[in-house]
């Protein structure tokens, strides 16, 4: 018994679930193949928290208004133009209808929010976060009659002349051939594939932490790109932030972030500073620090503050490393005490007086220091002294498959694939070629998930 499904969805996160639900609601028989076991289902959506949504007037969960042009300007700024205006505007406009769809699928939103990022105007926050969203979608999918296979990895998409003939699958350890009239791939990026990452980053990847799911191995992506599917996005690029070096190799998620950098000095293994820590507020800078740390020897750095700054940022999950003197702190961090003392002394001497204000760009800066610190440059003088080790934390990769406005996967020869669609991280590079905009990954996943589900169901019927 090997049924012919109308639509098979590869992946188990937000983009896969929205595609599966939409296709099922359009009347298609749908099978969803999730690589992870049930307890770890949901891909990187598990770790998300919000979705950026256009809206013309305040809603129950969003304040004021956030219109298409402002949204587009925000996207243009973070990508530096590395986007596709047609697909991007289509996504932005469709986010307005995404929220009612989500609510209909049982996704709950949170009325208001605290914390460091104030996004209540632009982003709708999921009550309980991304795993609660994923749970709601799975419950809806199962209620509608979507078949779900966990522990099921797609190894090969058999493409012939732009048509998917079958999927070669391992399900709970057993080989399986899955046949479908149309296929949606929503299987994410390849950031959890350390060997693939090594091709671009060398052995530095051994010091990277992968913030999200270990199941984002890019197996389907690599398989498709090897069969004439058009690619999009720079394969060497990934979104990297600075996180606590003590984070687990995979799946550390949000709690491993460290927000202390702007109020600290950050030194490398030689106890030397290498970048302006006070360039801008942290939400606008955390993404560049992943790369900065990745460029340091052994991909490690240390953020150092004094006791006056310890409550200026969100609590972090791992304990602060403390010592009564800078020299002793250096010892605990594995740094040369004399070198760290000299760096701190140079920094302290360069700090110019001024009213320190953690809540805004206070202009309290250093003078005659290279690199300078342009805000929050307060001497590190009040014991105990505190250090946190930093590593690059990889969020996602940019390489993906190219799609058109109907989520149809494009071939290298410019023709669309016959029955292959894509949604989510695997095609997001078309719209988000560089940088990141909070909550936009979920926007792309939801919007293109719904488009891919709709088009795959339509394709299967013809």
């Amino acid at each position: 018994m090997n049924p012919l499904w109308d639509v098979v969805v590869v992946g188990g996160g937000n983009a896969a679930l929205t595609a599966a639900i939409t296709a099922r609601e359009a009347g298609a028989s749908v099978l969803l193949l999730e690589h992870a076991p049930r307890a770890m289902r949901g891909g990187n959506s598990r770790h998300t928290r919000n979705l950026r949504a256009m809206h013309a007037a305040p809603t129950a969960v969003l304040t004021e208004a956030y219109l298409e042009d402002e949204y587009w300007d925000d996207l243009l700024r973070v990508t530096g133009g590395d986007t596709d205006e047609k697909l991007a505007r289509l996504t932005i406009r469709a986010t307005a209808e995404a929220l009612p769809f989500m609510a209909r699928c049982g996704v709950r939103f949170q009325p208001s929010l605290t914390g460091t990022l104030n996004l209540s105007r632009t982003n709708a926050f999921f009550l309980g976060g991304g795993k609660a969203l994923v749970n709601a979608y799975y419950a809806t999918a199962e209620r509608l009659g979507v078949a779900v296979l966990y522990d099921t990895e797609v190894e090969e998409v058999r493409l012939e002349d732009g048509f998917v003939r079958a999927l070669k699958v391992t399900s709970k350890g057993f080989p399986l051939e899955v046949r479908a009239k149309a296929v949606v791939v929503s299987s994410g990026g390849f950031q959890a594939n350390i060997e693939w990452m090594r091709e671009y980053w060398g052995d530095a990847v051994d010091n990277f932490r992968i913030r999200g799911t270990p199941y984002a191995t890019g197996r389907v992506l690599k398989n498709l790109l090897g069969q004439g599917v058009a690619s999009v996005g720079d394969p060497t690029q990934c979104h990297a932030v600075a996180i606590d070096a003590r984070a687990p190799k995979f799946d550390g998620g949000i709690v491993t972030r460290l927000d202390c950098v702007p109020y600290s000095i950050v030194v490398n293994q030689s106890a030397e500073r290498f970048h302006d820590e006070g360039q801008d507020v942290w939400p606008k800078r955390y993404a560049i620090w992943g790369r900065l740390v990745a460029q340091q020897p052994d991909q490690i750095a240390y953020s150092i503050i004094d006791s006056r700054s310890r409550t200026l940022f969100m609590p972090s999950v791992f304990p602060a490393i403390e010592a009564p003197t800078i020299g002793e702190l250096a010892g605990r961090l594995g740094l040369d005490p004399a070198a760290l003392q000299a760096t701190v002394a140079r920094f302290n001497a360069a700090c110019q007086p001024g009213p320190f204000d953690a809540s805004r760009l206070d202009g309290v800066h250093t003078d005659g220091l290279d690199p300078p610190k342009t805000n929050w440059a307060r001497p590190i003088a009040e014991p105990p002294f505190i250090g946190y080790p930093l590593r690059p934390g990889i969020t996602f990769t940019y390489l993906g498959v190219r799609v058109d406005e109907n989520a149809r996967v494009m071939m290298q020869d410019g023709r669309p694939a016959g029955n292959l669609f894509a949604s989510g991280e695997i095609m997001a590079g078309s719209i988000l070629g560089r940088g990141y905009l909070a909550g936009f990954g979920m926007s792309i996943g939801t919007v293109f998930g719904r488009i891919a589900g709709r088009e795959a169901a339509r394709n299967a019927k013809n």
Partner: protein
Amino acid sequence: MPKTEMGEAGMGETESAAMLEARRAMEVCNACRYCEGYCAVFPAMELRREFGTGDLNYLANLCHGCQGCYYACQYAPPHAFGINVPRVLAEVRAESYAQYAWPDKLARLYERNGLVMALATAGGIAFVLLLALALQRHDVLFGPQSLAPGAGFYNVVPYGAMVWTGSVTFGFSLVALAIGFARFWRDTGGGRLAQPRPLLQALRDAATLKYLGGGGHGCNERDESFSTHRRWLHHLMAYGFLLCFAATSVATVYDHFLAWPAPYPFFSLPVLLGTIGGIGLTIGCAGLFWFKLTGDQAPRARNLLGADAGLLLLLLLVAVTGLLVLALRATGAMGVALSVHLGAVLALFLTLPYSKFVHGVYRMGALVRHAVERPEATHRS
């Protein structure tokens, strides 16, 4: 309670494994905060950066066990962090019942609370049955009962014995509960209790079981799905209990001040209140017990199961036997039914400060503390 020797260096006292795990969980949660919309625990947690034992006891008693944060948790098992907030807070909660119990020696009653409740119930019923057998003529006790005022019930257990036993045990329990509350309040930070606005807020939150609502959409009872069944069952149980209490109070007033002794006709205030309350109590307790037995046990604490089952079943017994007394009150079975009912009530009164019943007292205290400490800006009704 099992204590470990792993207390934090320099703290001078050992902390239980549950307390250490609760602290670890709260430190992970405080760096995440995705669950802040579910209930009061997370906003209360966000007001702190460090968690002393008093803080954790407070948060543990603020938790209503709705389990929403467990199913939403990206760090729940099998994630390496293995975070399970409802379970560890329930474990700490169970330990806090023992910690606050007065007199201190009786804290041990929480070690095997299910057994204690069962023995107290058996003992209470046996005591009243024996008392009735010893004090009354058997043909009166087992014969058909008159429904004339002043007869009936007092033919089984004499009026004086009933009032004295009830008053003394209930009075002692109220004193013990009050001391437990004072201990809770002191341990979790002390401060002024009598502030009208927070008290009103806490009363409203308790009366509506606001935080058994999972942020408004219900709680997780058996899996990832949401429902408000537990909230409604708890309402049936709690308000059923209060109606039964009201029935007894009204009857006391009739008897003492209006010279109108029991039994009362069916369409009288005490009987109507008691009947409606008894039915609510029966459905509520049976339903809640059913939820204890079924569904996912992962977010629940093993060391609370005995106490949960013990109190629910005792309340169920009180309610069912109360209704039975009403049904059988003109028959020869009334004597035994009433003795069993009064025995169960006696056990309930005696164990009030040493049963799961105390959760109402400490949860109310935690709600008051939450209403006192939360910033004015976040006050929402």
